[in-house]
């Protein structure tokens, strides 16, 4: 019976994917019956069917260039891990974006984190325009823009008068955070990290929206959201206090601000 079920799950995985419960069941069956089945044979069979029908459209040139550049960076870092580690930036404002797809191995996630971290160093707003202006433009022009106000928390980083908002357009995948009332941080000890809780993603793994500092001399900051992963249905936003450089998955022990979208 268990062999039959094992094969059933392998076929299901190859054709339509498994739920978490089914995946757990499959893992247990494979553990109990090592060598009975090559766990990938049905996936290879499905891949062969795909290849039989695949029409092989050409990769768009701009996408190809982007992927090739990404590949060169990954390979360079694999070749020179020490140098890559030294090259980790300590910028004033940094965005670090990570993918949490369950199918990606932790190593890929870590690498993506390092790469994208380097890719998205904040270098100032485009063409001399400030972020406030671009934020206002988004508010004026994007038909689906949402504005969600921040609420202070009891964390010591958050002053009682903490305020501001998150502005986000799903169609443009563009947004800005405006914050005042956060305590200035020492970037060598901790940094703030912005998160987007996408209702269509696993809530354990919100999409990182960037690592930033709160300068002592500034009452208010406005920063762009540079989500590397597409956001489908944002339900909540948060700012946490993290180690310098941010983290891939927050333990959420220090939540400084929350912005809950009203239904």
């Amino acid at each position, binding site marked *: 019976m268990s062999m039959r079920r094992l094969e059933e799950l392998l076929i299901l995985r190859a054709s339509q994917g498994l739920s978490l419960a089914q995946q757990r069941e499959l893992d247990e069956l494979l553990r109990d019956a090592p060598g009975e089945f090559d766990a990938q044979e049905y996936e*290879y069979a499905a891949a062969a*069917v795909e290849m039989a029908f695949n029409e*092989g459209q*050409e*990769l768009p040139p701009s996408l190809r260039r982007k992927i090739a550049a990404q590949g060169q960076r990954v390979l360079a870092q694999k070749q020179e891990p020490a140098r890559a580690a030294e090259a980790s930036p300590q910028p004033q404002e940094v965005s670090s974006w990570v993918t949490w797809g369950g199918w990606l191995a932790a190593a890929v996630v870590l690498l993506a984190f390092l790469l994208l971290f380097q890719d998205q160093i904040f270098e100032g707003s485009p063409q001399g325009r400030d972020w406030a202006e671009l934020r206002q433009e988004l508010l004026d022009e994007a038909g689906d823009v949402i504005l969600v106000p921040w609420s202070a928390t009891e964390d010591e980083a958050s002053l009682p008068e903490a305020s501001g908002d998150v502005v986000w357009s799903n169609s443009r995948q563009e947004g800005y955070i405006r914050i005042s009332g956060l305590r200035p941080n020492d970037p060598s000890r901790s940094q703030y990290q912005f998160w987007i809780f996408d209702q269509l993603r696993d809530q354990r793994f919100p999409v990182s929206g960037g690592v930033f500092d709160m300068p002592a001399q500034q009452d208010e900051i406005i920063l762009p959201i540079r989500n590397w992963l597409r956001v489908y249905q944002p339900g909540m936003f948060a700012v946490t206090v993290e180690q310098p450089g941010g983290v891939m998955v927050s333990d959420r022990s220090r939540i400084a601000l929350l912005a809950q979208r009203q239904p």
Partner: protein
Amino acid sequence: MSDVLQQIANGKASAVEDCLDLYGGLVWSIARRFSSTAAQAEEAVQEIFLHLWQQASRFDPGKGSEKAFVAMVARRRMIDELRRLENRPRELPLENLPENPTSRADQRLERSLEAQLASRALDGLKPDQRRAIILSVCYGYTHAEISEATSTPLGTVKSYISRGLKKVRECLLEGKGAASR
């Protein structure tokens, strides 16, 4: 036989372009077919190649070709994405399914051995069974969606897909055995 994934695993920079030459179109067409927008497909293709750049060393030539490995990785990613977005509005392309590839003589020679073996296996299936396989494997529809759209009992759809994939698997194993003799 290509060893571009081995070259990637060894850190050979020039292999990146070779890999895109060989498999860029394959991955793009899978992503495009599974995605409702080009933007989603572009995001997915980047993630798939990021996975390949990092996990190329996991390719085991004893299990299948490089191309099959790449297609498998791409399908996994796309199935994962589809299941996450279960409420997606999609219409089943019942009227525009691709024709049986073995009937396209011009493409026979260009296709890999695995693709030819799969085609041969699909040749022996009834039209309804072949349609269920294509909708499931090539378009990512769930068994329940196929059942509803084709007015076929769910158990029958499951059986079509199960028997079809078993047949393809057997053909691949036989082909692999013959090739190694």
